[in-house]
Structures are given as structure tokens and as C-alpha cells.
């Protein structure tokens, strides 16, 4: 039998399992059917209910406009799948091609897609995280609980972490007339993703909207009252804040623990893949039957020196799901690489913030058009003399122009495309607090001498 015959047989009656039934998993399932896969399709997810959209949770849902259970994703088509929901996967056996579920069941597959995403990073002290009034925001249950707490009219909300989610939550609080304190370890909001220049703008926006923004401070303790309700936060500078609600917005943790021992190159940094979303094993070899998509995947991007990059972006999840699904049911000659530039958006304080490219892959930044003081501008990021990213504040229509500059490695700084050239157009250092692209904690041991014997084993995969 030729491999083409095998492929046809697989498309007709193969078994595909998708682990992770959220945005990426659903769009992959739809694409598989679209591509003519008629075999068995199993969706495994740790949350109950149909796949739902998460971006509205920190926006429309928290304002009280949309119910937390009202963000179920529209379907592009029937996926005719068996859904195994409410049970997380606990292991992957690539010797026998089985997914192990936490309840002990083994689900066999011919090919598997991993789209297990990320979960909210909890507050680091368990007893304090368990206090009434302490929240994280990732699932619809989280959003429902937080919305109810905001609707109850708290005297003050403390948001810990001024990344995108934390900043959006602070924005909603002000919109609802709730006093809010934002505590951020970095010198400004959004600084880890967008650098110091944008961080200053974000800080101005927060303060202009009445946020009590405290940067360069660490929350050291969440205090509860006699009834176990959160009432006060302590900072490392000795100060305190009294509040009824604390939202821990310290980013996410990739759901890869269940892959320990699977032999895949998976860890806290995600699952390493090729641009076709095929997972790599620990030795760095491409696997044939294991694919990854969405927040958990870490793919090389040729535009950024082939570095492995993982992204928690909505469009990235959709695009990788489509590429992975296509490649699962097509032969080598018809495979697609995922080469789309990352695009991100955030809505906060009435401003639409969007970005294209990878802003952390930069050494300089310049305001290329518009006015920073009006919060309507585009900032362009450059690395060694070429354009690598752009961020717009209420200027989304221009991002496509900058996307083309990035894709063609246009020289940095680029000329201003409009008559509203800003007065001060000098590039400034991008000033990130630390390297963002390195796989921290990826420690391995190489053994063997002959080329046929040399192998890698994971030595340590430590969080930091």
C-alpha cells in the first residue's frame, strides 16, 4: 500500500482525538470535517459545556451586559464528534497511541491534536487564594463570580498585575464607578508585552480614569477577616490597601503537566512544534501523529529568526487550529506552514489597543504617526534596523500597512505614512524588563555516542 492509500484510508476511517475543547480545539474539529475527514473524532475537555469564547469575559461580561454563560462559540459546521467533557487528560502514551483520562479511561487514536491552552496563575498562598472575594479570571465560572462581586458594589477592588487582563478589569471597574487599586511589580502597566514607552502611556490612561495605580510594588499578603472574607492587602513597601475584592491577574500557566513522561518537548514554556504544528519530541525530532495548536503550542517563526514563540492570542489559536487540522489529513507535499504574523487586541479605558508582529522582538521603538498625548497613535518596533512589530492606539486601520512592512523586513524606522507626522520622531530604546523569548527551565541531558544512540532526556523542568 502506498502512503497515499494509507492517507485516504486514514481520512475515511482513522481516529483523531483532540485534547482541549476550547476555541482551538473546536476550530480544528470543524476544519478536519471541512477537509473531508470522515473517521471518528473525539473531543476531550476539562470544562463542562460547549466551547465558549474567553475575550468577552473580561469585557462585556464584567460590565454586566452579557451573561457569563452567553459566550458559547458559534459553529461553522457540524463536527459530528464524541465529546468527553468534565474530565482532564492525565497522560499521553505514544508507544501505544492512547490518551489517558484522569478517571482512568484510555482513549486510542491514530493522530492527536493537543490544544489544552493555559489556566490562570493562582495566588501563590493557597489559604489566601481561598478567601472570599479573591478571584482569578479565565473561565466563565470565574467571570460569573467576579461579575457578581462587582455588582454587589464593593468599596474597592484590588487588581494584582497590570498586564492586559488586569488592565481591562481595572477599566471595567472605573466604568462601573468602582474604586480600584492596581498593583504592578514592573515600572508600568503592559510593560512586559509592549515595553516602557507604551507602559508610560498605559499608566497615564489608568491614572486619568481614576485608577490608584501603584507600580514597582509587590503584594506580599492578602488578609482575611474573621469570616474568611478578603479585607486588606499588604505591600512590600509596608503600605496596605483595604478592599472587598482582589483579582489575581498574574498571567497563565500552560497546561502541559499531563505530558510529563510522554517524550514530547513539552514544559512550562509550551509544546515545541514545527511551523506545521507537528509536535517535536524531546530529541527535537518531528513526530508524525502528534500536533499542537493554540496557547500551548510553541512554534518557530521564520520572521523572528526562527525562534520558538508561544502566543496567547485569539487569532493565533484559530489559525494554528486550521493549519494543524489541515496537516493532520494531508500528505507531506500538501502541508501548510503557519506563517501568519501575531495580531493582538485589548479594549481598555475606551481605547482600542492592537498590535501586529512581536513587540518583544525589538531593540528600539518610535512613534511613527499620530499623537501620544491624544492616545491615538502607532508605535513601531525595530530590531537591528528592520521593522518587527507595531502597536496602535485607536488607529487599527493602519496596522495592515505595518504588517506589510514587517513581512518585507522593511528598514526601521519607517517613514510616516500620513500627514500627521508626530513632532518627536526619534527612536528610543525599547527597554523590556527581561528576555521574553527564551525557554526558561528547559534543561536536558544528552546521552550516547553513536549517531544512532544519541538521545535527550529531560533533566529538570522547574518553574521560576
Amino acid at each position, binding site marked *: 500500500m502506498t502512503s497515499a492509500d494509507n492517507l485516504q484510508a486514514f481520512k475515511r476511517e482513522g481516529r483523531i482525538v483532540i485534547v482541549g475543547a476550547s476555541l482551538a480545539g473546536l476550530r480544528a474539529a470543524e476544519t478536519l470535517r471541512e477537509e473531508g475527514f470522515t473517521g471518528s473524532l473525539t473531543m476531550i475537555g476539562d470544562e*463542562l*459545556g*460547549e466551547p465558549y*469564547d474567553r*475575550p*468577552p469575559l473580561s*469585557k*462585556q461580561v464584567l*460590565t454586566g*451586559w*452579557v*451573561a457569563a454563560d*452567553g*459566550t*458559547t*462559540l*458559534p*459553529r*461553522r*459546521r*457540524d*463536527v*459530528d464528534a*464524541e*465529546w*468527553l*467533557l*468534565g*474530565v482532564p487528560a492525565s497522560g499521553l502514551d505514544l508507544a501505544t497511541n492512547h490518551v489517558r483520562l484522569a*478517571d482512568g479511561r484510555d482513549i486510542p487514536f491514530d493522530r492527536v491534536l493537543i490544544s489544552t491552552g493555559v489556566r490562570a496563575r493562582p495566588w501563590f498562598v493557597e489559604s489566601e487564594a481561598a478567601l472570599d472575594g479573591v478571584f482569578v479570571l479565565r473561565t466563565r465560572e470565574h467571570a460569573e463570580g467576579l461579575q457578581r462581586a462587582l455588582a454587589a458594589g464593593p468599596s474597592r477592588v484590588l487588581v494584582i498585575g497590570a498586564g492586559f487582563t488586569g488592565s481591562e478589569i481595572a477599566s471595567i471597574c472605573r466604568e462601573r464607578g468602582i474604586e480600584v487599586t492596581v498593583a504592578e511589580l514592573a515600572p508600568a502597566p503592559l510593560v512586559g508585552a509592549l515595553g516602557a514607552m507604551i507602559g508610560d502611556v498605559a499608566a497615564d490612561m489608568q491614572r486619568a480614569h481614576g485608577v490608584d495605580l501603584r507600580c514597582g510594588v509587590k503584594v506580599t499578603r492578602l488578609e482575611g477577616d474573621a469570616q474568611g472574607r478578603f479585607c486588606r492587602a499588604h505591600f512590600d513597601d509596608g503600605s496596605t490597601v483595604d478592599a472587598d475584592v482582589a483579582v489575581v491577574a498574574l498571567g497563565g500557566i500552560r497546561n502541559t503537566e499531563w505530558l510529563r513522561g510522554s517524550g514530547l518537548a513539552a514544559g512550562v514554556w509550551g509544546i515545541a512544534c514545527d511551523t506545521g504544528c507537528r509536535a517535536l519530541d524531546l530529541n527535537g525530532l518531528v513526530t508524525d501523529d502528534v500536533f499542537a495548536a493554540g496557547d500551548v503550542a510553541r512554534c518557530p517563526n521564520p520572521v523572528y529568526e526562527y525562534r520558538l514563540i508561544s502566543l496567547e*492570542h*485569539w*487569532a493565533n489559536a*484559530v489559525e494554528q487550529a486550521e493549519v494543524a487540522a489541515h496537516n493532520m489529513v494531508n500528505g507531506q507535499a500538501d502541508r501548510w506552514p503557519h506563517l501568519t504574523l501575531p*495580531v*493582538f*487586541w485589548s*479594549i481598555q*479605558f*475606551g*481605547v*482600542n489597543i*492592537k498590535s501586529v508582529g512581536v513587540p518583544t522582538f525589538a531593540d528600539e521603538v518610535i512613534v511613527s504617526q499620530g499623537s501620544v498625548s491624544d492616545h*491615538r497613535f502607532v508605535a513601531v518596533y525595530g530590531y537591528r534596523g528592520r521593522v518587527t512589530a507595531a502597536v496602535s492606539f*485607536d*488607529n*487599527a*486601520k493602519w496596522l495592515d500597512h505595518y504588517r506589510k512592512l514587517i513581512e518585507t523586513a522593511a528598514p526601521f524606522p519607517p517613514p510616516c505614512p500620513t500627514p500627521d507626522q508626530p513632532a518627536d520622531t526619534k527612536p528610543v530604546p525599547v527597554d523590556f524588563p527581561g528576555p521574553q523569548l527564551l525557554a526558561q527551565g528547559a534543561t536536558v541531558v544528552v546521552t550516547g555516542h553513536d549517531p544512532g544512540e544519541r538521545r535527550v532526556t529531560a533533566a529538570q523542568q522547574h518553574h521560576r
Partner: protein
Amino acid sequence: MRVVVDLSRCEGYAQCAFLAPDAFRMHGEEALMYDPAPDDDQRDRVLRAAAACPVQAILVDRLEGREAPVEASRS
């Protein structure tokens, strides 16, 4: 009905907010907020908004008689 807007594609033309103001609202000058579960009596207006979007960023549920709701796994 179910709606999702690809906000990475949305450029804030606000056609949807004009055609179906109960489902799509502008937040500030450019940012779009929308109802992902508008009432069925909004359907015609939402479909018109989706058709009119200059960047085709609005996806409306394609399944009229949707497949049976997701079965929970045996516990």
C-alpha cells in the same frame, strides 16, 4: 443566536453598530463591544450587520437546527 467577532480583523468601521445597535456597540471611538448571544428577534439585523462588515469579521452560527447539545462524559 450565537455571534463572535474576530476583533483582530475588526478595524472599527462601526457599520454593525449602525445596523444592529442592540447587538453591537462602539466603546470609545474605535473599540467594538458586542453581544455574543443576541435575541433571535435580532437575527435579521445581525445578519445584515455581518454581511455589511467591510472586513468580514463577524461570524454567526451556521447551524440552524443545531446538532444535539454536547453530551457530558459519564462521571
